[in-house]
């Protein structure tokens, strides 16, 4: 099977600070992989590099066989990489529906149609409602996004990413700031979407229930470098990971 993503020895420094240090790994279709690591380990930075928000100093990234290191975000996204953000990134003044709909339109390549009203774009609209429903946000569809609570905004962010039907979806701490209930829901939801759409998923999490609950593989980053890579069971019992990251259970 061809890998979707091959990351090979990428590096990134800010000033003198090495934030990503020769990271290499691959993702295969259908993977469900978690990245964990202490705060400041360089997880978000890694995502930023993968999505073209930052250019790596060295190394190569091949997405579906094409080199994308240093390519522009919008091109990478068009190729099929989607992302939701650690600090929620939505369109606060638009309605919840439109937040998702704009992504659907973009996916359907109808986002720059400029005469036909949005409501006439049935396919995008239906799809947006569908996604909102699956996230449990349909009751807010006419509300403006900024009126949602923190946790709901987080879900909306994921919804926007989902709408792009990405081949590889990156989620940066998808459940942070969510209540246990939503966490559970989101966890199930992600799992469901993953199997339903044959998604390939890479997510950053600090919630161990989530990591060990659904991930098939776990990558551990520490000080920019890949510390270990393995199945959840291997990671959970890895002494290095325990001291650097997990600590004793609360």
């Amino acid at each position, binding site marked *: 099977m061809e890998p979707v993503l091959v990351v090979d020895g990428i590096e990134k420094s800010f000033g003198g600070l090495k934030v990503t240090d020769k990271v290499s790994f691959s993702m295969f279709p259908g993977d469900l992989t978690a990245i964990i*690591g202490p705060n400041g380990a*360089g997880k*978000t930075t890694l995502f930023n590099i993968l999505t073209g928000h930052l250019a790596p100093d060295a190394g190569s990234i091949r997405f579906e066989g094409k080199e994308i290191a240093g390519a522009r975000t919008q091109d990478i996204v068009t190729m099929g990489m989607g992302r939701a953000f650690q600090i929620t990134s939505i369109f606060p003044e638009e309605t919840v529906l439109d937040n998702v709909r704009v992504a659907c339109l973009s996916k359907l390549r109808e986002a720059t149609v400029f005469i036909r009203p949005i409501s006439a774009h049935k396919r995008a609209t239906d799809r947006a409602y569908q996604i909102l429903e699956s996230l449990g946000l349909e009751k807010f569809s006419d509300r403006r996004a900024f009126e949602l609570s923190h946790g709901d905004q987080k879900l909306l962010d994921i919804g926007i990413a989902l709408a792009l039907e990405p081949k590889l979806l990156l989620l940066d701490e998808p459940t942070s700031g969510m209540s246990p209930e939503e966490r559970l829901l989101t966890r199930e939801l992600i799992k469901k979407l993953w199997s339903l759409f044959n998604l390939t998923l890479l997510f950053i999490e600090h919630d161990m229930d989530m990591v060990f609950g659904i991930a098939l593989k776990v990558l551990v980053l520490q000080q920019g470098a890949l510390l270990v890579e393995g199945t959840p069971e291997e990671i959970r019992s890895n002494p290095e990971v325990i001291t650097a990251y997990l600590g004793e259970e609360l």
Partner: protein
Amino acid sequence: MGVILEATGLNTYYGRSHILFDVNLDVRAGETVCLMGRNGAGKTTTFRSLMGLTLPREGRVMFRDRDCTRLPPYRKARLGMGLVPEDRRVFGPFTVRENLEMGRIPGRKGPWDLDTVFHQFPVLERMVHRLGGTLSGGEQQMLAIARALMGNPDVLMLDEPSEGLSPVIVVRLKELILSLKEHKTTILLSEQNIRFAMAVSDRVVVIDKGHVVYKGAIEEFRREESIQKRYLAV
């Protein structure tokens, strides 16, 4: 132990949407109270109302036996209320040090200054000259807490402090809160991480759709599984 912070009958709105309904809350000196509730229950709004960032339309906020419902936030801060907002809001273009110095409130004395804060958060000391905006999510969270401590607040309000922190750091945060308790700092926090909340709190207030639906000591709350299920879905 006397009540240091008390809210009675808070009703708060955003524009025309009614968010808080007759919220009553009291925090006694030296204790740690945890506000729990689902997303959108109104935890953040409660903090905003207490701090005066969003003024409640009805109700009263008493702080140290003084009615300060309508006092502007800076007056409350000077009286000894400190807030760590859920979105952290560090000053991006400022260095870590400058961020911390902004937290100092002239005239307020206490155990916290740059040295003690750095002692508590060695990570921050390593990045004193970095710009706040370049910190990682978790680093920003620590900075925000440290900044609030710099003002030596009598009551520290933490809106979901463990969010985005890695498990080891959460443990450290737990220790920090316990040590703050020893320093007689009063703490009001909101949490979604139940285990963490249970580990640090003395009392729990559960809020749902803007209504306070449960109040009780932590030991009691532990046993209230139906409440936990109903409002927190654990």
